Each structure stands twice: as C-alpha cells, then as structure tokens.
C-alpha cells in the first residue's frame, strides 16, 4: 500500500516532505514553550483545514459551519470524560459517530433537495448556529456556563487521558496532521477522489458520465465531518474548557477555512502552507504589538481579514500553486510514466 501511495511522486517532493517531517519531529528539542504552543496551533489549523478541504477542495461544497463538527467532537468526549471518566481515545469513536450523523443529515437534506452553492453554505451556518444556541441550553454539559475538564497533575504525561505537557500535545497533533495528510493524498488519487473532482468541476457533466453524484457528495461530507471530530477532541483536552458561544461560533468556522483558502483550496499542501503562514504571521504580529505595549483585541482576526482579502483579490487559487510551480511540485499526482 505504501508503494501505491508513493507511486508517481517525484523524488524531490518526497525528499522535501521527509525533511520537513524530520524538522517537525525534532522541533521540541530546540523550540521553547511558547514556540511549541504556536506550532501546536499551526498544526491544529493544518489538520482541520485538511479535513474541511475534502468537502470543498475535492467535492466543491462550501461548508461554513465546520465548527459544528469540532464542537460535537469536543463536547461528546469532554462530557464522557467529566461524567463517566471515559478517556478521549475511547470516547473518540462516539464523537466521530455523532459528528458523522450530523454531517450525513446535513448532506442528505442538502443534496436530496438540491440545496447547493450559497444556499448550502447558509444551511451549514444555520446548523452550527443551531448547535451553538442548543448547547447553550444543554444542562448536561453545563450550557453557557461552560464545561471544564479537571486539570490534574501537569508533570506526568498521560497519553491515555491526554493530560500533560505541551510536548505531548504537540506530538499528538503532529501525528494527527500526518495521518490526515496521508489520507488526503490517498483519497485524491483514488476513484473517489477523481469523481469528487468531476463533481466539483461540473456536476451535470459528471452525472452524464455515470457518476452517482448524490452518493459521492455524501461520502465527502461524511469523511469530512468524521475527520474533523478528532480535532474537537484534541481541542477539548488541550484547552480544558468549552463554551458553546466560542466553540460553535461562526468565527471558528471561518478560521477553519482561512488556511485552505489562503493556501490553496483543493490542493494537498494548501491547508498546511496556509496554516503556517497565517498563524505564524499573526503570532508574530501579536508579539510585535505586545513588545510595544499595545493591547489590541481583535488585531489577529483583522490581520486574517486583510490576508484573506489580498489572497482572494490577487491569488484566487491560493498561495500554494505559484509556489509549487517554482518548486516543481505541481505534478505531484502524476500516475503515468513521463
């Protein structure tokens, strides 16, 4: 299977990837605590960006409510842990199942009834908002007062319960991001991936080629929502507190899409590059301001807004494609001999 995944990938691309991975694995050795938390944030957005990208970049359905799946993943595992002491890895299947059920419902409603384009996006926003308000009144998870995870001994690294030092969280999110990357790569060059691209390009023409578009769109939303849920699990156990207002809020959904949109929707590296650039630069900006004693709430998101504006206006396909041309990495999905 590894051979199949590697088949056709140019050697210099593989080398670059291995190099990058090596750097990331070794990072905790020479990165301070602060830099580590920034890297964790970057990888978190790279992960969620990948998961979202499957629905949009591959299948062409713009979801602006992905915070729903993050929130569900977070709340399900957090509640199981707080009420029953069930660890995050054990609770994750339940989180994924519930997330997928929601995604499938949204998908079924939308795709069966022909809700597409802008209307689909608004539908996804509506569902996320529905969850936000719903969870605000959900007493079992403390509603709007917030759900707090017991923060115990920080010295020991308990990977079973995801309690511990930032280093542990770093490796967990790094592993998740790598797995997501490999999955997306495999999907892109599979039959499903081809059909998704056809649907994205021209759904009507795709149908005339025998592609059961409803079924494949459902696969996209199921895989995308299922893959986003673990990010929520990570979120809950890393930050240890959940508020419906914050977790399901539309701004969260927009943060998820910023990485892929700026990096390059539909590409494999787009979400990763986007996450690195966006989070890296905004943290740098924050530090600059703090150094000058300027307290500016919202400046990070303001920065995101300008980045998004610039990218959409000037580089609508994202930053990655021109980058890839320079690095001769744009023919990553060659399956045929030259």
């Amino acid at each position, binding site marked *: 299977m590894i051979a199949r995944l590697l088949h056709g990938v140019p050697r210099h691309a593989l080398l670059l990837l291995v190099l990058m991975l090596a750097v990331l694995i070794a990072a905790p050795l020479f990165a301070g605590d602060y830099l580590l938390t920034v890297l964790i944030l970057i990888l978190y957005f790279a992960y969620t960006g990948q998961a979202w990208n499957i629905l949009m970049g591959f299948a062409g359905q713009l979801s602006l409510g992905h915070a729903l799946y993050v929130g569900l993943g977070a709340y399900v595992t957090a509640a199981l842990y707080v009420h029953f002491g069930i660890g995050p890895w054990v609770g994750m299947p339940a989180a994924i199942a519930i997330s997928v059920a929601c995604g499938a419902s949204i998908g079924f409603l939308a795709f069966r009834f022909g809700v597409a384009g802008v209307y689909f996006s608004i539908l996804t926003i509506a569902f996320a908002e529905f969850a936000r308000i719903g969870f605000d009144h959900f007493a079992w998870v403390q509603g709007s007062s917030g759900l707090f995870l017991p923060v115990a001994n920080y010295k020991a690294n308990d990977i079973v319960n995801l309690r511990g030092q930032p280093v542990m969280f770093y490796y967990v999110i790094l592993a998740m991001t790598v797995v997501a990357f490999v999955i997306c790569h495999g999907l892109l060059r*599979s*039959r499903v991936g081809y059909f998704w*691209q056809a649907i994205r390009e021209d759904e009507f*023409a795709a149908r*005339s080629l025998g*592609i059961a578009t409803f079924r494949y769109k459902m696969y996209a939303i199921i895989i995308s929502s299922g893959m986003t849920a673990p990010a929520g699990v990570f979120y809950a156990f890393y930050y240890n507190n959940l508020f419906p207002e914050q977790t399901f809020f539309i701004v969260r959904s927009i943060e998820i899409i910023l990485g892929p949109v700026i990096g390059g929707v539909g590409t494999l590296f787009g979400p990763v590059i986007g996450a690195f650039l966006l989070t890296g630069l905004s943290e740098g900006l924050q530090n600059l301001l703090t150094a000058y004693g300027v307290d500016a709430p919202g400046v990070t998101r303001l920065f995101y807004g300008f980045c998004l504006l610039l990218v959409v206006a000037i580089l609508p396909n994202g930053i990655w494609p021109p980058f890839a041309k320079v690095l001769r990495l744009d023919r990553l999905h060659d399956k*045929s001999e030259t």
Partner: protein
Amino acid sequence: MADLLQVTNVSKNFSGLRAVADVSFSVPEGAIFAVIGPNGAGKTTLFNLIAGVFAPNSGGIQFRGDRIDRLAPDEVCRRGIGRTFQLVRPFLGLTVEDNVTIGALLHEPNPNAAMQRAHEILSQLGLFAKRRHLAATLTLPDRKRLEVARALATGPKLLLLDEVMAGLRPTEIDRIVEVVRKLNSDRGITVLLIEHVMRAVMSIASRVLVLHHGAAIAEGAPETVVRDPAVVRSYLGEEAL
C-alpha cells in the same frame, strides 16, 4: 438486426411549449442515425430525454429492451449510453487525461488501469500528445474531441453526439467524421447524432430523422429525406418549393 433504441410516442412540454411532439423512431444496432431539423426543432430536448435529463410527459424510451425513460442521467450512462453536449463541457480545471480517466473509472475501478484505457482512447482520437494539458487550454475542436473521448471511456453501446461538428473547419469536420465512422465500424458503437452540417450527415448516416417544431416530419435514407418536400419547406420556407 435488433433495435438498440426505441422511442415510442414521446412528448415533452415545458410550461405550455411543446418541445417534442409525439415522436417515434427506432435505431438499429450498429447504425449511424442522424437527427436533423431547423433550430428549435426539439433535437437537443430529444437527446436530453433519452439521456435521462428530463422524463417525457408521455410515451416511452427503450434501450436494449428495457424502459429507460424514468431513469436518472447517471443510471442511463451506466446502462450504456454516452453523450456529448452541444456547448462543450469538459472539466476545464483538470488535465485531458484526467478528464478521460474519470470516464473510464465508471467500469474500471483501478485508477491506474483507467488511465491506461484513457491513454488508448486519447491516442485513437489524436489527443495523446496533449494529455497533460489542462482542458481549459484546448481549442474548440480539441475540446470536442476530448468530450467524445470522455464519453467513449464510459464504454457505451450507444453514443449520442450533439452537434459535435458545429464551429469546426472543413478539414476538422472530415477528421471527426472519420473518427465517428471508425468508432462505428471498428468498435461497433451505435451512433445517434444531431447535426446541421449536411455533408457530414450525408456521408456517414445510414438513416435520418427530421424534426420540425418538435414533430417528426420525415424519416428514411439520407438521399430520400433530403428531397422530401416537407423537409425542404421546413428549412427554406414555402418559396423554396
């Protein structure tokens, strides 16, 4: 020879406009059957009915003996009918080979094998050299050939070609005519084509159906149909007679 496609008393209305009016005809297996008629005669609507884009208001369509008139477009394709579009719709953001591979994936689940098949088809249609190009960079004649290649890749028994020669220069027309003729003779694919380019119709069609205002006004061998007074009247008006 058995009839591959049977259209029986098919009608289609759009909010009071009768696009197709009680049309009946049969396409024998292995034939090249042309549908001609002035603009607005209902030819593309007829294609859309066969391809499953709409369901007829009345009448039935049978393919290889089974009713297909209520089926969705993807199901129709899976049964063995491929089609092209009057205004070409290749997957512009994808490469030529990816376009055709997608078609081939219908019956060949392995992407590598599908791409091999795609390459074979592209070679036959003279597009192999451009296989890595983005479809968006192709000229119109190439885009038309790409669409034919893509539809071919789905392994159809019946190929619906909608004005595939429109906008092409005479040399290009001759080339495509050859391609269609070879598809029919070498691969045994039955072809149903909508065409305005009469010299193409005359040279390859074995049978011609003429539509006017949604109704069939003549059917038969090309030479006879072309001289039918009703046909001449529909194209050129009363004065022509």
